């Protein structure tokens, strides 16, 4: 009898403990991140979107996937799709297509209207809202103003191997291993040779959107990452590290829009440099592409993984892979606006653009 009472008491105590735990120590389950497909738009035939009267505008985003380029409306889908003859340089404000041997270059707005023409021989490229031409010797650069006027032109000491730009600083890397920063007025405000390797060369460089932080991967046999910060009037080395990589081709690298993180290709994936903490992390990924996209509000990084299978990777700022979204297609393009992620893909049947919204469930 006594034994039975003891057993009943124990059962009751266990049930009570569960109830107490459930109500007192309960925590809500964390919300799971999810990617939700919003729209998917295929380019049936290049040029048709524009011919139908849906002209692209300044609010549309540019894309380049394989040999096709154009603009898409983040809310609706593709606006304008055309086929490259050789190359194209795109920004939100302008685009310029070019043949292998361009004569006159036509710079057009997203709607296809001619903004200006330039006669200077060279291939166009744009970044940080600025327009440039690289000359036939790959050492001469001309900056073009908003109306097509020449802002400055200069010859660099050797071949140009890397480039990035913000509104205030155009950063060039050269074969002789020098980083040179130029303002929109053509003034040289940075000239730095990282050195230290058997062969000097700049393989990749990046500049933050405020122009205050610049980074480069330099040298062959051994290769290193160098980060410089602007203090007072000069750029000073804030961080450097020898890398395991020893690439002899251009290296993709980019700051996130919020300037918090620098992303770069490295051995085994994507190197993540935290500018505030001056610390590095690694996101393990195969053949990473589309570096630089991030969702700062959620502290998330985005990248496209190539190699054997193409996929979108979402990771934390510390490089922890949260999820992988596999898809079919080649030569992927990645863009972001708010919580929306845009993926452009080349498929056998043609180019396709997807909008995926990041949400919580």
């Amino acid at each position, binding site marked *: 009898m006594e034994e039975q009472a003891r057993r009943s008491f124990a059962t009751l105590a266990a049930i009570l403990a569960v109830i107490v735990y459930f109500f007192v120590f309960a925590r809500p389950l964390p919300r799971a991140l999810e990617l939700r497909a919003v729209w998917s738009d295929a380019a049936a035939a290049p040029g048709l979107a524009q011919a139908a009267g849906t002209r692209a505008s300044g609010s549309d985003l540019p894309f380049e996937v394989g040999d096709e380029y154009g603009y898409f409306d983040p809310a609706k889908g593709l606006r304008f799709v055309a086929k490259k003859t050789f190359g194209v340089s795109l920004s939100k404000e302008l685009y310029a297509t070019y043949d292998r041997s361009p004569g006159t270059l036509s710079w057009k707005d997203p709607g296809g209207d001619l903004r200006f023409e330039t006669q200077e021989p060279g291939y166009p490229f744009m970044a940080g809202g600025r327009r440039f031409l690289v000359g036939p*010797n*790959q050492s001469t650069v001309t900056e073009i103003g908003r109306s097509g006027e020449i802002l400055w032109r200069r010859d660099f000491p050797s071949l140009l191997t890397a480039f990035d730009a913000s509104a205030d600083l155009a950063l060039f890397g050269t074969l002789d291993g020098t980083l040179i920063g130029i303002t929109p007025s053509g003034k040289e405000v940075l000239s730095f040779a990282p050195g230290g390797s058997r062969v000097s060369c700049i393989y990749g460089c990046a500049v933050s959107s405020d122009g205050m932080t610049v980074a480069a991967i330099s040298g*062959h046999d051994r290769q290193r990452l160098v980060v410089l910060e602007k203090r007072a009037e000069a750029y000073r080395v804030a961080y450097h590290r020898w890398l395991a990589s020893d690439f002899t081709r251009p290296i993709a690298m980019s700051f996130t829009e919020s300037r918090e993180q620098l992303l770069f290709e490295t051995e085994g994936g994507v190197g993540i440099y935290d500018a505030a903490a001056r610390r590095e992390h690694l996101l393990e990924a195969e053949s990473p592409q589309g570096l630089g996209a991030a969702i700062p509000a959620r502290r998330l990084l985005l990248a496209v993984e190539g190699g054997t299978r193409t996929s979108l990777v979402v990771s934390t700022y510390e490089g922890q892979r949260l999820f992988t979204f596999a898809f079919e297609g080649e030569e992927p393009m990645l863009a972001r606006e708010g919580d929306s992620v845009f993926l452009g893909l080349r498929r056998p049947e043609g180019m396709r653009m997807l909008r995926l919204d990041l949400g919580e469930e």
Partner: protein
Amino acid sequence: MKRYRQRILLLLVAGLAAAGAALDWPIAPVRVAGEFGTPLEGSPMPGLLFAGEELAARTAGKGDVSFHREAIDPRTKLPSALGAMMVNEGDDGLAEVYALLPTVVGGAGPGAMQGAFVAKTGQAGISGFKGFWFALFDRKMDRWVNPRLFMPELQDKKAPGIRKVSLVGNDKSYSLGETRSLPQGSYALVVETTEVVGADGESIQGPPYFIRILVNGESQVELRAEVASTVDGRLSFYPDRKKGADMIDGRGALRLEPRMFTRGRTSIEILIRDFSGNERSAGWTLIVE
């Protein structure tokens, strides 16, 4: 001091060339279509242009590939106006640049031997030139060097040509040979020369390897196109000369520093020489009023 250092280096370079070329021609048959300084699309090029399609470009020396890229590479925002290119790093501090190539995929890799395959030549780069561009960058001195200094001697018995010589000043151009007199003033001598490159007599316009100019029997200038470097954001083929003095323009003409021509009879003599030692000279007499 700097000039003496440069001369010593040039002597060393010449000595090396005389002792036996350190590098081999990067293509066979060798057909030089542009000398050191010959412009391409208006840009004087600090290297040699070799003509020929579907030929194998090969490493001129043994080395190690330190850079390669295709014309358009998604990893960089910077396009290549020189098409696909590859850089072979020699042990002697000379970086060999192979450019204007359709692709360098499948080309030489690390530890490339002399004569290693780089690429098949074709039409590439902004100029549409059919061939490829070869240049040497001297890493120790941070400047381009005329590859001819390191290459085996090339049989060439054709003398370069003096196409046109003008005196330019006061917004006017006076062509020597057509002008008998001109007003006193400061004039820049603009010399357009040609080099025969084809067996059929085909010639290209570009600066001569060597030029000497005499005014009234006195040597005024002697220039050798041996090195090129950037001075104040401008590529100069005569970096020893004072800033902006003598330059190669976008047509390949040599524009010399303006000098004063005073009243009286003035004789101008020009002698040019190509790298094989073939010479041509010409002279004119003018009345400066």
